[in-house]
């Protein structure tokens, strides 16, 4: 393999990997505050991209993206308030099935609004054929937007959770919900907020990735599976782990193309998920206690 080809694969891997990492962080935010795995996480990404594409007819792109993210956040809040908030101590099986139902409904709403066609946002800078040279390899400029946006989101979330009082309240809620309630934190609002945050970062990821990967009504399930793989791989609930695992999976997947046919690419990441689940359910970086398997 030549150096150029190697870098080409590497950049593609990092691009997809950072998207997976963002989806995984979306899983983690909701999981930490509620213990729910939101199967509709991929649909937030789809909504973000699709809404931005539709809004683009009426306004410049930065505004369309911001508005799309805000609308998706609203959808996230609505989902939590309508379907999750008022359930009294529901079983895990019930929550799984409800979020699966939400993801199906979201997909069906999308297909009836936007149809089955594949759409995409235009490139933020330049077009499909403009590229930047990196060590002799040609890389699309959008790749840097994806990587930068993902890195920015991770940093901002870190600052939010560490320094702001709302962020601290959410973390308190994550570590012990009852104790947080006793301290006067409105845990129900924290849960809603976690859905809003998770929808927001999903939507932003959906916008920046749209020029490269395109948006379609049914892109959610595949992304959710890979995001979940990454979340498990990095240790459920850990953001740093999600980034590392996301990049690992992205790069593995990119290089797998040179060995196995493209049609099996998805099957590979799912096979990784299954193997991880069987062998090390606490993730590569997580400790056994942190996995909290007995909680389920």
């Amino acid at each position, binding site marked *: 393999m030549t150096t150029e080809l190697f870098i080409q694969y590497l950049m593609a891997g990092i691009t997809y990997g950072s998207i997976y990492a963002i989806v995984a962080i979306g899983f983690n935010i909701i999981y930490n505050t509620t213990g729910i*795995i939101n*199967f509709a996480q991929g649909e937030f990404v789809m909504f973000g991209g699709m809404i931005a594409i539709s809004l683009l007819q009426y306004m410049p792109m930065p505004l369309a993206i911001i508005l799309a993210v805000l609308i998706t956040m609203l959808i996230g809040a609505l989902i939590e308030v309508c*379907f999750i908030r008022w*359930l009294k101590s*529901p*079983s*895990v*099986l*019930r929550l*799984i*099935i*409800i979020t*699966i*139902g*939400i*993801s*199906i*409904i979201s*997909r*069906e*709403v999308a297909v*009836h609004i936007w149809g089955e066609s594949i759409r995409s946002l235009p490139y933020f800078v330049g077009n499909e054929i403009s590229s930047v040279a990196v060590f002799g390899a040609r890389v699309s400029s959008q790749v840097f937007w994806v990587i930068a946006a993902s890195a920015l989101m991770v940093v901002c979330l870190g600052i939010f959770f560490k320094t702001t009082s709302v962020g601290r309240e959410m973390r308190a809620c994550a570590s012990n919900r009852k104790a947080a309630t006793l301290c006067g934190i409105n845990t129900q609002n924290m849960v809603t907020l976690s859905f809003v945050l998770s929808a927001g970062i999903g939507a932003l990821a959906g916008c920046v990735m749209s020029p490269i990967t395109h948006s379609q009504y049914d892109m959610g*399930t595949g992304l959710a*599976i890979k995001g*979940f793989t990454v979340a*498990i791989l990095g240790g459920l609930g850990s953001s740093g782990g999600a980034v590392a695992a996301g990049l690992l999976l992205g790069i593995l997947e990119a290089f797998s193309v040179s060995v196995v*046919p493209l*049609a*099996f690419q*998805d*099957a590979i990441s*799912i*096979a990784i*998920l*299954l193997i991880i*689940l*069987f062998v090390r*359910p606490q993730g590569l970086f997580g400790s056994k206690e942190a996995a909290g*398997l007995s909680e*389920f």
Partner: protein
Amino acid sequence: MKKLLSVLPLLAVVIGIHFLASATDTMYYLTQMTMSAYYALLIIGLCVLMGYAGQISLGHAGFFAIGGYLSAALTTHSLVSYQDNAVVSFLDSAGMLLAGHDLYGEAILVVSPWAACIVAVCTAAIIAVVIGIPVLKLKGHYLAMATLGFGIIIYRVALALEYFGEADGISEVPAFVLLPGLSVSGNFSDRVQNYYIAWGLLLIGMVLLLNLIDSRVGRALRGIHGSDEAADAMGVNTSGFKLQTFVLSAVFAAIAGVFLTHYNGGIGPSEAGVMKSVRYVAIVAVGGMAHLWGALLMGIVLNFLSLRGVFGSYDDAVFGLILILIMLFAPNGILSLNIRHRLKQLLGRGKTDKEGEV
């Protein structure tokens, strides 16, 4: 024996539907009833796994597809060019191959449907064991994601392999001759006999499962559902029972797949899709998780409506909505909703009778 008697009313209903259809000149309904019966066969199997053993599976369309695809591929793809192969000639000498002619009069050599059926169902069972041993150690979200992942892999394999016809699937699958004069096929002339084959199979499955859940195994499964650890402590072989139930439901799914594929004369990748698995789970949930009769009834009704095209382009949306509504308002299934009682309560005259709140 009692179980055998308890399905007799159902048999009467089945015959009644036949007479009703022929009296009202709506025999074409029998076609969808036949297909619904095969789907219901899968659903009652899944019901025992989900409702009684408490293990969710989002990959059962995968087992259905393994059965359907293997049987279709074996009975359709000609082996003439491999005739010198040792395996093929062994199969031939064992009487498991059928020689014939295709549409253009060329000689073909395919696996006989009975042999193909056995191979398909056994393969599904073996895969269920191999997947089940590690998967059933998982719980909750992990189990759901792992089975979903398994379903997607099967879907991808069906889409990617030329042997399984890629996106087109396999068509022109020959009839499955069960006995001379009794064959599973989509021919008009065979419609009535196929209706009874499908329902006969479903009734047999029902009797088996009713017996199972009323036996020691059934009680053990309910114990596992209540609490894994408690059942374990009482000396129940929890992982063994879970695995057996998983394999049993996979076999039910595979048999349904084999028969429906021969009945339809083909199978496509959508049968292996995630949405199909979710739909089966939805139907089990609507029927009431631990309620075989509910699962059977809903399996027939919802599949029949869906196959008749009542839901139009909102087909998947309807199942998604049903799933959410049931899980929000009636997590024990629609039959558990005591409507009259609820209404009374709403009207403020709610005297709690012994059926009570669920």
